[in-house]
């Protein structure tokens, strides 16, 4: 009996069905065949120039080391990890361009890296458009896990609000109620100062003045004179990158680091290391320190030194740590998901708990499913007057449980896009 379907019809229909499976008919969802033998390509979006070049290169050392360690263990799902890098230049427009190119031309499976909050936000927007899972490793503006949160974006550093929550209560009681804010005039500075203002006033502080510090300020003498004239009890500074380095140099030189009390939100390790212990001033937050008396810490320091013998930063700090831990967790999330499918990976990350032992911190951490922000131990530190060696800059004063410093505002302001409006892909 002759069939009603000719071979040509069969081929045409087959092609149509195959094409529909591959390209649509969904508006967003393009399903690519999984290529199991192909390495998983990661796009590293670290700053190599501009205000945060130094930190950008430090977090890059962390992500690369985690990738190499994963490959040494045999990769993930039987596939090797490879990476490409591009300089995001501490510039949001460059961040957008780099992310767009990495996703559409290089077809990266994931994006990892950010220091400056404007850049992180720009990359996050592009990543959300394509559904590409993006790890903001080190940018700590509260808006990153608040109003600028994204379904595809996960934020690994402690936020300005976390650090303010850890410090404010104690600072009001110890130093006094008259507070002055120094605010770097960009996303992170504004949002960190906003969070500090809200939190400090909640604990009884009065904000007497807020000085906006333009990005690129190289002379802090007028500002420091004004601070002296105002005589605040506490100066809460949200000043970062090169601006902070210049300000710190001036403050320490003048001996103003003793009075008033300085709250410096977060002190990134690459911004201080090499300048001498005497350069450290005020009270500040960090998420990790290489002298924490915890299992795994000395081993990580040794691995870092073996892998990066030529870097001037002799020991890893918080910026390296965030890059390293984030990349390691991405590998584990792919393993848990059993796939590189972005939605599966996102679900494997949301709410995921990480033990204190694995994180080399004092408390367990978890990824907040409502904000995609890693809730972790926050340390308060100051200058170490009795250093064990030349790398021992910080004296860890206290550490807070993640619950105690969770930013409730970000939960209110973060609106994650629904899964079904997030494009799916699998590389």
């Amino acid at each position, binding site marked *: 009996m002759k069939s009603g379907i000719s071979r040509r019809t069969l081929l045409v229909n087959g092609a149509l069905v195959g094409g529909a499976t591959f390209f649509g008919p969904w508006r967003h969802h393009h399903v690519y065949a999984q290529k199991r033998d192909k390495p998983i390509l990661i796009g590293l979006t670290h700053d190599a*120039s*501009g205000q945060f*070049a*130094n930190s950008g*290169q430090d977090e890059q050392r962390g992500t690369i080391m985690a990738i190499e360690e994963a490959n040494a263990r045999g990769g993930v799902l039987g596939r090797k990890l490879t990476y490409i890098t591009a300089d995001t230049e501490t510039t949001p427009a460059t961040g957008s361009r780099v992310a767009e190119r990495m996703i559409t031309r290089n077809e990266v499976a994931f994006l990892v890296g950010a220091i400056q909050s404007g850049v992180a936000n720009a990359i996050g927007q592009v990543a959300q458009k394509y559904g590409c899972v993006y790890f903001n490793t080190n940018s700590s503006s509260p808006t990153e896990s608040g109003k600028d949160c994204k379904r595809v974006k996960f934020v690994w550093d402690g936020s300005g609000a976390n650090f303010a929550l850890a410090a404010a209560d104690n600072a009001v009681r110890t130093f006094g109620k008259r507070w002055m804010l120094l605010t770097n*005039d960009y996303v992170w500075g504004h949002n960190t100062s906003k969070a500090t203002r809200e939190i400090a006033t909640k604990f009884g502080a009065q904000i007497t003045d807020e*000085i*906006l*510090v*333009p990005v*690129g*300020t*190289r*002379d802090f*003498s*007028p*500002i420091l*004179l*004004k601070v*002296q*004239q105002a005589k605040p009890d506490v100066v809460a500074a949200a000043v970062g990158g*090169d601006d902070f*380095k*210049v300000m710190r*140099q*001036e403050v320490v*030189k*003048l*001996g*103003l680091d003793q009075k008033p009390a300085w709250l410096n939100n977060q002190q990134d390790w*690459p*911004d201080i*290391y*090499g*300048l*001498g212990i005497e*350069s450290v001033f005020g009270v500040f937050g960090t998420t990790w320190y290489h002298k924490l008396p915890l299992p795994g810490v000395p081993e990580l320091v040794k691995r870092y030194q073996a892998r990066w013998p030529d870097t*001037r*930063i002799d020991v890893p700090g918080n910026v390296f740590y965030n890059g390293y831990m984030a990349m390691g967790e991405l590998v584990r999330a792919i393993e848990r998901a059993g796939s590189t499918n972005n939605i599966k990976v996102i679900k494997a990350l949301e709410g995921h708990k990480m033990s204190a032992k694995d994180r080399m911190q004092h408390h367990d951490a978890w990824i907040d499913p409502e904000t995609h922000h890693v809730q972790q131990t926050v340390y308060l530190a100051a200058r170490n007057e009795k250093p064990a060696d030349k790398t021992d800059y910080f004296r860890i004063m206290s550490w807070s449980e993640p619950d105690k410093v969770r930013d409730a505002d970000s939960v209110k302001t973060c609106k994650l896009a629904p899964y079904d409006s997030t494009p799916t892909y699998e590389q």
Partner: protein
Amino acid sequence: MDLMVTLGPHLLNGLALGLLFALVALGFMLIIGVMEVINLAHGSLFALGAYVAVALVTPEGGLRLAALGPYFATPIPMRFVVALLVAPIVVAGVGMGLEVCLRRTYGRDPLYGLLLTFGAALVIEELIRLVWGPTERFLPVPPSISGGISLGGLIYSVYRFFASAFAVGMIVLLWLFLQRTRYGALIKAGAHDSEMVRALGINLKRLRLLVFAFGTALAAVAGIVMAPIWGVRPHVGVDAVVPAFVVIVLGGVGSFWGAVIAGLLVGMVVGLTGAFATAWSLVSMYILLIVVVTVRGRGLLGKKSVLEK
């Protein structure tokens, strides 16, 4: 009275800042004035001066000079003075090399010189990154000129006073050099009419080489003096070349006293806005420039210059 108590410290600070801006602009002014070349590498040479000084003052200064143990056993003031003398000579050598490259652009569209020096700026900055790395460096200053001094209940930086006094010294010395020495007269004559200078039998090629070396050495001196204030990082030159350019245009291209007055004006404006309208402090110098150039196109004391060709 209250106003003066509030304003006084900022006026004093603005004056000090202005002298530093003038110092940063001196070498730039000399090269534009005599050679009619806008040396965009001025900032990178400024940074190079700071880095060479770091290498000469600190054993871990990046050039593996640590082998010079006995030298680094000498006190910091001694090494600081050595840096102030040696680093400008090193940078002047680099400047001379750049001038040789620039020769083919003389007499042509100024854009050629502009592009060449811009390229040189990028190359020098990258070389700094390669040799010293991207991280921040620290130039220690002698203890006698560091720390703070209390005046009227406020703490001022002793080093800033030193730097301002140093700037005054440099301005006076340069002025005396230009006014009272034969080379100074040649430089001024070269700036006024280079062809006539050549017709009188002066070796113009050598004069230009020396002026360029002198200008870049001044950039290095400024880099060293500003290093403890602005810090030392590969791109610190950008922080220098932009205000230097503003000061030169504001003062009038090629005008010595124009540059000094413009430096003081810029310092005063930046200092006062830094205190009372901080968000405007960086942009204030450009607003000042726009206002002055709108009223007087050639700047405060300027004459017809290369920028008008």
